[in-house]
């Protein structure tokens, strides 16, 4: 997903190239229908599909001739494309990014593309091996930010490949906004991060990237609930370091582990080793609950 943040320049104004099997102009309705193998392109943006509806903005008609008694204009020319909708196997390409869906709306005035799909085939955004899907994907053509409703993605580039492939981070949320300039992916509402046997829930999370598009850090805020097997840790905030694979919980952090309840200044959870460190720990321990662990070789 990180690579999604690095895309082409803003869409420049100019004519929209198109190809199709058929074109039907409805001058009175200020619209054009394109049918069959529709291909629309402008600069580095290409949108293809099976059907397209191109809508023109309504403009003041040109000055009438003196004696002309023409009614209100209903014309095709003399106007510019306001928006177009594309249906049926919609494919969007821009730079290294590609996206697929069932329905796409390109709004020229707001410089956005909204891509939707079906419950069975949600829209998908791909960029250099990274894949992101969701209920609805909105691309900002001017600043290249991306918004995703109900995103589902795997942060492949957040995991090390040496010495061995690592468990991927899977993220779900109600909303995702990718801010290209800030190298930031902001997840909000019911954020769930899964990695191996670890699940973390939080109302919001920021994923930060480096210049190479690698995830460097995850910052979860607003109440964090981490579960790893029988172990549970909570805190107001949590920070995940992609290099050390450690989660640091702060803000009245608490650790619940088979009857043990510990609180401290901060709690560090190392995801791979399952090691937990509690700084300035205080709390209640129940050693009898861990007898079976001690019996293990």
């Amino acid at each position, binding site marked *: 997903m990180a690579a999604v943040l690095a895309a082409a320049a803003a869409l420049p104004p100019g004519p929209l190239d198109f*190809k199709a099997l058929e074109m*039907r102009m409805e001058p009175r309705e200020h619209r054009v229908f394109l049918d069959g193998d529709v291909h629309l392109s402008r600069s580095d943006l290409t949108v293809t599909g099976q059907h397209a509806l191109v809508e023109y903005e309504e403009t003041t008609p040109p000055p009438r001739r003196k004696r002309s008694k*023409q009614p209100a204009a209903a014309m095709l020319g003399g106007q*510019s494309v306001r928006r177009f909708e594309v249906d049926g196997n919609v494919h969007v390409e821009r730079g290294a990014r590609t996206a697929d869906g069932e329905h796409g709306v390109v709004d020229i005035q707001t410089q956005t593309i909204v891509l939707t799909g079906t419950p069975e085939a949600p829209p998908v955004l791909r960029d250099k091996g990274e894949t992101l899907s969701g209920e609805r994907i909105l691309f900002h053509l001017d600043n290249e930010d991306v918004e995703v409703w109900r995103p589902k993605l795997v942060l492949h580039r957040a995991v090390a490949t040496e010495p061995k492939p690592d468990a991927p981070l899977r993220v779900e949320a109600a909303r995702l906004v990718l801010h290209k300039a800030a190298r930031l992916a902001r997840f909000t509402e019911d954020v769930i991060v899964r990695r191996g046997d670890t699940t973390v829930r939080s109302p919001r999370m920021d994923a930060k990237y480096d210049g190479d598009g690698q995830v460097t850090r995850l910052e979860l805020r607003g109440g964090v609930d981490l579960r790893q097997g029988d172990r549970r840790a909570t805190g107001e905030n949590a920070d995940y370091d992609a290099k050390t694979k450690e989660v640091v919980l702060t803000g009245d952090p608490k650790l619940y582990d088979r009857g043990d309840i510990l609180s401290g200044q901060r709690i560090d959870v190392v995801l791979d080793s399952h090691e937990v460190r509690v700084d300035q720990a205080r709390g209640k321990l129940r050693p009898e609950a861990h007898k079976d662990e001690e019996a293990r070789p």
Partner: protein
Amino acid sequence: MSVTSSHDAAPDLSLERVAFARIFEGRVVARGTADRLDYRRAGGRVTAADGSAFMEPTKGYTSYGTLHFTAPAADGEISGRSGVATGGVHLDTAHGDAAATERVEYEGAAGFVRSATPVDARGPGYRVHGNGLLARADGSAIQLVRGVRGLLEMEARR
């Protein structure tokens, strides 16, 4: 449509360097010229050479303003309200549109204008090439068929 008038038969009336006008409800809605115009009473057939016509649409295409058609040859059947223009048909509108195709057929009864030859059209905000044309005479829809490509402007020209 039957527009294949017999050119062998001598016309009942033959005019050269013709100018004409059609008046509807007190207004000139069409006027034009032709180098030559033949009229055959049988079938009400008219044949024109190097014709040029200006039309003021009273409905449908009114937004395009005055329409100017030219064609090297045109055959028409008045009673059947049908006709064929051939040899390179050009249309220019007061609105700034221009279209050209080799052959155009008009079917007045069905309310269609058709062309089975490639069509090029351009105007403010668009340029398009199609391999055929089907347009409603009432102006409600213009359809380019059998493969179409072109440009649509995305910025306002005010």
